[in-house]
């Protein structure tokens, strides 16, 4: 099994706040890794360190056997890493197709405009936005914008896809169809790390889960092991709603 | 100082600052020549008119674009600038005026100080102190700081942000008008004279940290000292080169200003 991404003792601090402490894990190719934890546990910060938005204070990140610690987001994008954002960032005044073309043009395949346009149409078909290709991205609703974020990331044909709460704010049927989409992405051989609060989804589709609390890795393992880990339940007790959800899953 | 207030509170670069300074100059001029009132007494009507004008400009030109991209508010204030200069040019021509007034001079050791300048400096310090007290000690002042810090949160707590924004724009304008009035007591001026002071107030604002009244005073001091020292080493025509060079460098290195909080 090839290791696609490896974090070795990554730490990040904001002023007095230790946002991440000594995060270490290996991610084999083709897996879906779930990243859970209470709000403010450092999940999004970890994404930001992985894809180069912030350099880590200490530790190394190795992506596809290259040390990529401290590289910029665009370097990592060009090496085959793509992500979505928790708070969507559509390019409002561009059309949906143009949004996705940006992903294809500047990602690691470095496509020209003609090919990018073809890829954009394929990917938009895949995420179910084919009917809206010529609309301005700003005119989409939230669920559609989330799909657009996903399409942009996929258009780069990445090796690694970071999904930051793609299910948040969606209704039940939207969640189900998004889960199907994620599984289909894995079938294409793309490795995924997803941050998610919707436990049903995390438990069902992740191969492995890492739990963060106050910037520390408090548990790691397959979904069953995580759900019965007392430390995890304890961490979530600060967030009763989530603890409840988690306990429900066990039943 | 008015610049830095408007900037800090609204995140708007006010390009109509210059002509308002010039209007302040003319305010003093007309009050002095028509009514013979002492220019320092004349400051009061100038300040009140400045406040009203500022509120008017805010309501007419700035309010609609305050949440729009920077470019919009820049252009809105620039169009106000054009309107004032255009009308001013038509009514007053661009030829220089002069307020013929002296407040004697004082000898301080070997340095002779013109009375008008000394009083201007005192009034400026008075205003800085007043502004500081206003911002930190009074209710509307605290509102202004709250709105500057986080407009959405301030609104949620029931602060009438539109009125507060209009008030701070008015205050900024008032300060510009007053400084114009003070400058008029010792320099000749024309309707176009505001432009160079506007550029200077950019530099001062950035030096001291935009949005920080005490910083503005320090910024002004630093600039004044620079203008005093540089001619000792090289020709005084190099002063603006240094000033604007410094301005760009500070923007790059410490956009919050020399005395601003570290971000």
């Amino acid at each position, binding site marked *: 099994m090839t290791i696609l991404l490896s974090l070795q003792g990554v730490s990040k601090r904001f002023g007095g706040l230790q946002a991440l402490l000594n995060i270490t894990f290996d991610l084999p190719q083709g897996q879906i890794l779930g990243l859970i934890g209470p709000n403010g546990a450092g999940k999004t910060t970890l994404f930001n360190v992985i*894809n180069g*938005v912030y350099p880590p204070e200490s530790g190394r990140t190795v992506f596809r056997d290259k040390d990529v610690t401290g590289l*910029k*987001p*665009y370097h990592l*994008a060009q090496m085959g890493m*793509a992500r979505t*954002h928790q708070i969507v*960032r*559509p*390019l409002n*005044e*561009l059309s949906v197709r*143009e949004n996705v073309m*940006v*992903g294809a*043009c*500047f*990602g690691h395949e470095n496509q*020209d*405009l003609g090919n990018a346009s073809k890829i954009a149409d394929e990917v938009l078909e895949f995420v179910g936005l084919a009917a809206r290709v010529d609309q301005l991205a700003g005119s989409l609703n939230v669920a559609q914008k989330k799909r657009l974020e996903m399409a*942009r*990331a996929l258009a*780069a044909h990445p090796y690694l896809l970071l999904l930051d709460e793609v299910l948040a704010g969606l209704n039940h049927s939207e969640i189900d169809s998004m889960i199907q989409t994620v599984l289909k992405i894995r079938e294409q051989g793309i490795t995924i790390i997803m941050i998610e609060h919707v436990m049903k989804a995390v438990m069902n589709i992740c191969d492995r889960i890492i739990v963060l609390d106050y910037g520390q890795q408090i548990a790691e393992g397959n979904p069953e092991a995580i759900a019965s880990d007392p430390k995890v339940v304890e961490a979530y007790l600060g967030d009763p709603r989530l603890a409840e959800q988690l306990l429900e899953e066990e039943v | 100082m008015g610049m830095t207030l408007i900037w800090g509170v609204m995140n708007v*670069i006010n390009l109509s600052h210059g002509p308002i300074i010039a209007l302040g100059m003319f305010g003093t001029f007309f009050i002095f020549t028509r009514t013979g009132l002492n220019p320092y007494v004349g400051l009061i009507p100038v300040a009140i008119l400045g406040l009203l004008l500022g509120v008017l400009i805010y309501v007419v*030109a700035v309010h*609609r*674009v305050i949440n729009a991209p*920077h*470019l919009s508010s*820049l*252009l*809105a204030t*620039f*169009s106000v*600038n*054009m*309107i*004032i*200069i*255009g*009308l001013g*040019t*038509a009514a007053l021509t661009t030829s220089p005026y002069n307020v013929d007034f002296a407040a004697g001079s004082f000898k301080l050791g070997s340095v002779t100080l013109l009375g008008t300048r000394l009083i201007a400096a005192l009034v400026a310090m008075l205003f800085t102190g007043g502004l500081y007290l206003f911002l930190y000690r009074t209710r509307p002042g605290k509102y202004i700081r709250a709105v500057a810090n986080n407009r959405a949160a301030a609104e949620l707590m029931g602060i009438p942000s539109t009125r507060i924004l209009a008030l701070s724009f008015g205050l900024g304008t008032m300060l510009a008008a007053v400084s114009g009035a003070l400058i008029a007591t010792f320099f000749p001026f024309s309707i176009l004279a505001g*432009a160079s002071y506007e*550029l200077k107030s*950019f530099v001062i604002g950035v030096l001291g940290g935009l949005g920080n009244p005490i910083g503005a005073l320090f910024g002004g001091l630093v600039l004044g000292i620079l203008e005093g020292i540089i001619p000792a080493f090289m*020709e005084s*025509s*190099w*002063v*603006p*080169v240094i*000033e*604007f060079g410094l*301005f*760009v460098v500070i*923007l*790059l290195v410490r*956009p919050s200003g020399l005395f601003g909080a570290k971000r």
Partner: protein
Amino acid sequence: MKIWHRHSGIILPVLVIAALTLWPVITGKASNRESAFTILKAIALASSLNILLGYTGYVSFGHIVFYGFGGYVGLFLLTENEWSLWTAMLAGGLASGMLAFLLGTAILRLRGAYFALATIGINEAMKAFINNFDLFGGPTGITLNFSVYKPYGGAAQALQTSFYAGAGLALLAIVLSHIVRTSKFGLGLLAIRENEDAAEVMGVVTPRTKTWAYVLSAIVPGMIGVLFFFKNGNVEPHDAFPLHASIEILVMVMLGGQGTVLGPILGAFAYQGMRGYLVTSEFFKDIQLSVSGALLLLIVLFIPAGAIGWLRHRIPTLRRVLA
């Protein structure tokens, strides 16, 4: 067919330039030629600025610095080294491009209003520097010797030649603008304009891309500077770096619609046309500045996307033609 579609946006702009060039030739009046030159110059400057402002979303308040700097370099080479107008124009453009490259590397890290402020500072610093720079004549500037015009058939003929050169530069500016707009590089710029962080995450190498946009937007203004001051006969710090002209160019781009090829052209046309009318009319002569200001205010407040942007929003089918 596909090529035709992609490049249909350039047709109208080229027609406008052609019409402007032919107008004085047909009427044969020198005054028309001067008006047309002013408009062509405005079109070239506005279209260039649009690459930075409209496509990349960075507001430069001191763009005129490239016009002045290029003009100075060109005139210096014309007088001291007796270069021809054409090589001097090229050199002026290159010099401005290089200046933009150096400045861009430094100040494009700043965002929003801080960038705008820095550009003002740079323009003023440059003006003050040239004022002290003896090689470029200090405060008196550089004056061309009359004999410079000899190779172009004397002063009168040189004016005619300058006019055609101006038309050529305007054409160059809009072709450049169009190529950028329809290229992959341009797509990267638009992505930066819409959301710089998102663009970075998608792999747009933002520092390099922004710097090249800055360079591209500086070259034609540098060349125009050389041409204008050649025609003018001399260059002084105050004529070379007028801050208000910077803002006038901004206004033109806004007026017509930023981020489109045609917008700045219409904006330049409308603004210069309006100014020409106001300056000469009996009634508005004195308050022309106020009238322009009031018009600008109305545009900013009510149709911030500019005329073309407004049309595009109203009538979606026009989107392709008005690219």
